[in-house]
């Protein structure tokens, strides 16, 4: 890819994200107006007077904006983590949940719902339970995979992830069976939601997301080197195990934070990087930054759909990402050409 073309793709993706953010804050039962929304947002950021009325301003600043920002952070994180996992494992089907993050988060959330006293505290504990569950699951998978030997390559780690995920899912099912009353709450969490978000959730995800994006994008060149295989990368002087550990750690911590506030939103980590790969080629130099930007915009649009198609009811956002994402991916797959 020529640098000029790469810059064009980056510009296009930024415009896509900007459009998504604007649509995200404009769509809703109360009409706010595009110009007012932009001016009010700048007013809040720079401590100026908002042009919107008090209630409209609250709708924008307390409801829509945090939700849209959260969707962007979660989408960018899942897409970047998916692309990073696909790179370090050289596995096109890798997604952010590959090493058991989903199963661990599911178990953590289920335990909180089942055993924590039913109070407002549950709402605070749920993200913590999910985060800890996801992180511990991946650590367990990593330790198990490493014990199989570095020589076994990335395959051993993936198998370890599958093993840990199966075990944790069994535990989660057991806990659910013991507490049938939790099924509804856990199920709705598993389907993914951004509904209850406020700035607090944004605050939870933001630091993890930004640090993880920075670490993953900083490894973009080394992920290209890994694409020639562990042994050849080692022959080029790369410490493969260290690169893999750093990238997996960054991707996992951010995924755990995203899962903690939004539940399990599937498909983003696969569809976004693959769509980009089909359009611009497989080099991680461009793929990773584009994944962050396009993933962010994609989830904002998905959330707009989730809250409008059956308004005032909401569809789980995980259903939307899969329902609209899969056919879109099929179209891209059929019509794409390799970049010249």
């Amino acid at each position: 890819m020529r640098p000029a073309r790469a810059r064009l793709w980056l510009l296009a993706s930024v415009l896509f994200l900007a459009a998504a953010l604007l649509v995200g804050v404009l769509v809703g039962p109360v009409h706010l107006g595009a110009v007012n929304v932009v001016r009010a947002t700048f007013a809040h950021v720079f401590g100026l007077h908002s042009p919107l009325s008090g209630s409209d301003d609250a709708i924008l600043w307390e409801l829509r904006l945090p939700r849209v920002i959260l969707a962007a952070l979660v989408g960018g994180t899942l897409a970047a983590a998916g692309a990073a996992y696909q790179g370090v494992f050289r596995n096109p089907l890798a997604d952010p949940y590959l090493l058991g993050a989903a199963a661990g988060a599911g178990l953590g959330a289920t335990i909180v719902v089942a055993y924590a006293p039913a109070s407002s505290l549950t709402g605070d504990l749920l993200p913590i339970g999910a985060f800890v569950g996801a992180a511990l699951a991946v650590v367990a998978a990593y330790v198990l995979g490493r014990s199989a030997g570095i020589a076994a390559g990335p395959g051993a780690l993936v198998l370890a992830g599958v093993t840990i995920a199966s075990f944790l899912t069994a535990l989660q099912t057991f806990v659910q069976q013991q507490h049938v009353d939790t099924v509804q709450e856990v199920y709705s969490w598993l389907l993914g939601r951004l509904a209850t978000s406020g700035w607090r959730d944004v605050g939870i995800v933001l630091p993890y997301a930004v640090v993880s994006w920075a670490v993953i994008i900083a490894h973009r060149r080394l992920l290209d080197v890994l694409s020639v295989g562990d042994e050849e990368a080692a022959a080029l002087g790369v410490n493969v195990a260290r690169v893999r550990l750093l990238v997996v750690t960054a991707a996992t911590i951010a995924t755990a934070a995203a899962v903690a506030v939004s539940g399990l939103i599937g498909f983003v980590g696969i569809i976004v990087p693959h769509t980009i790969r089909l359009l611009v080629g497989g080099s991680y130099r461009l793929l990773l930054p584009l994944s962050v930007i396009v993933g962010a915009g994609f989830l904002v649009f998905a959330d707009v759909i989730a809250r409008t198609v059956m308004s005032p009811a909401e569809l789980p956002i995980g259903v939307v990402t899969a329902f609209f994402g899969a056919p879109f991916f099929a179209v891209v797959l059929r019509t794409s050409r390799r970049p010249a």
Partner: protein
Amino acid sequence: MSALALDQLSVTLGGACVLDRLSTDVAHGEWVALIGPNGAGKTTALRAVAGLVPYEGQVRVLKDDARSLPGKQLARRVALVPQVPLIPGDITVRAYVLLGRTPHLGYFGSEGRTDHRAVDAALEQLDLIPFERRALDTLSGGERQRATLARALAQDAPVLLLDEPTAALDMGRQQQVLEIVDELRMSRGLTVVSTMHDLTLAGQYADRLLLLDGGRLVAAGSADEVLTRALITQHYRADVEVVDAPGSGFVVVPVRRTP
């Protein structure tokens, strides 16, 4: 002074000794071919030199003990082209060749002008300029082999290790690739160590042949010393005739046992 010195190099894999006390000196600009039947330890010897398998004994690259060199330093001195390179299909030839610059870059570093110049030179020497924007998986086998060689050249390492550089190529492509390697050896002053199955070609291109069998060095020398009917029959368990063809060197011809 030798470019590469192996001293009692031994490798044990899975409890089996696959390379047994191999010692040899490779001079600057020399082309040494490792020959021998399957499982003789040829590839293992190359991997040990590239620091990819643990070994006993010593490997010295340009005077220094290879073990004392950090991975990146070793990769600046030794470039390895594996027999079946893993080809990431959806990146361009240029991006692939650029990966050869990895040993010259910091952990988070990115390529500068010098690196792009090295890539330009490698692409040009291997006639890959017209292909530089093509995805690797749209290339033919011979073109891919050239791309892999270009990546190794971009590495700017004085020692080039080639594992079966002509495997899976037709006769014409085999000659082309070996001619290119020989040309690069001359123009860049490279030292080449290659494993080769085709004994005739090995004799034609290499200065010296090392015949390995069962991990041990059993014969070493020029083509007329190593490519003998007795040695080949004994170590390859093959019925052959060795013909001294004027202008072509020693041609190893298989002879059918039951006509």
